[in-house]
């Protein structure tokens, strides 16, 4: 066996033993080794193989570029965690609001106990309908939990894809620093679409009304 053949065989053996550790660089390297081995007068068959190997190499490179363009690392490290956090916040908020509604129902029931006749039965009837309507929170909570599990499954699959494609593909693009964003807001150059349309913050991260009042008041000093 020639030195070249041994090199290619060793690489193919490595791929066969640990397929999950194979990177695209590995595969491209094998393909290029084979292409480089084709020397001397080439038969039509050799030319065909060479062309197909070149096409395979180009296809792998182009697929890597396209996948890199999707920014899979961004999806896994930012977008999916944000989505699951937001959905958890939805469940928390609807649970809290439903609790308040049910507290109000209890208060109405207390008042209903102090009146008689149709007024009392009317109030109780309305409270009952509110209790029934509030069961939405249970259903929405379950549906959202299903969505969160689906997102977590997608996250796992993207992780597996990143392992195959290679870590450099997943590298995040540089974000604008918060200090720069604050400076831009002060001098009026901030990009509204990029930085000011974020929607509700996660409760632990959101500014309170008191903090906002203090910030507004600082402009008057």
């Amino acid at each position, binding site marked *: 066996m020639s030195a070249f053949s041994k090199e290619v065989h060793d690489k193919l053996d490595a791929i066969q033993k640990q397929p999950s550790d194979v990177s695209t660089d590995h595969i491209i390297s094998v393909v290029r080794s084979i292409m480089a081995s084709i020397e001397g007068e080439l038969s039509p068959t050799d030319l065909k193989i060479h062309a197909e190997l070149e096409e395979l190499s180009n296809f792998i490179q182009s697929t890597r570029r396209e996948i890199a363009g999707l920014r899979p690392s961004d999806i896994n490290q930012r977008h999916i965690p944000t989505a699951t956090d937001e959905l958890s916040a939805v469940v928390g908020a609807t649970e809290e609001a439903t609790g308040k509604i049910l507290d109000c129902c209890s208060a109405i029931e207390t008042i209903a106990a102090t009146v008689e006749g149709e007024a009392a039965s009317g109030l109780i009837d309305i409270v009952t309908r509110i209790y029934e309507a509030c069961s939405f929170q249970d259903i929405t909570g379950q549906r959202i939990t299903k969505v969160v599990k689906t997102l977590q499954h997608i996250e796992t699959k993207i992780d597996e894809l990143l392992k195959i494609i290679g870590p450099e593909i997943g590298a995040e693009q540089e974000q604008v620093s918060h200090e720069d964003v604050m400076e831009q807001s*002060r001098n009026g150059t*901030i990009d*509204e679409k990029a930085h000011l349309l974020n*929607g509700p913050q996660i409760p632990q991260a959101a500014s309170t009304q008191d903090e906002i009042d203090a910030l507004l008041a600082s402009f008057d000093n």
Partner: protein
Amino acid sequence: MAVNKEMHVLIVDDYKTMLRILRGLLLQLGFRNVEEADNGATALAKLRGADFGLVISDWNMEPMTGLQLLKAVRAEDKLKKLPFIMVTAESKPENVITAKQAGVSNYIVKPFNAETLKSKMSSVLGPF
């Protein structure tokens, strides 16, 4: 000077539920002449067409955001002194700073309660 509760108030939000809540709270505070718009562009057209005493607007709307509406209002001679309260889920400091720089009269973060709405309206219109 006493606040004229007969003034026309324009509420702007792309969520019907929020418009319903604001209308209900304003009614409880004694403000009956409440008109609605579901985006900044419609709101601006209404403001140009009638006399309003107060605008209460959301931020995150399309095609015109609450910030763009605020800037448009402050850019017109007839409207530039109109009290404008932003009521929004956007709570980051850069949002508040940008709105203040654009001339917002006050800023309420969602979710809010009736007491907060009354307090911020009072600080802008006068006590009532």
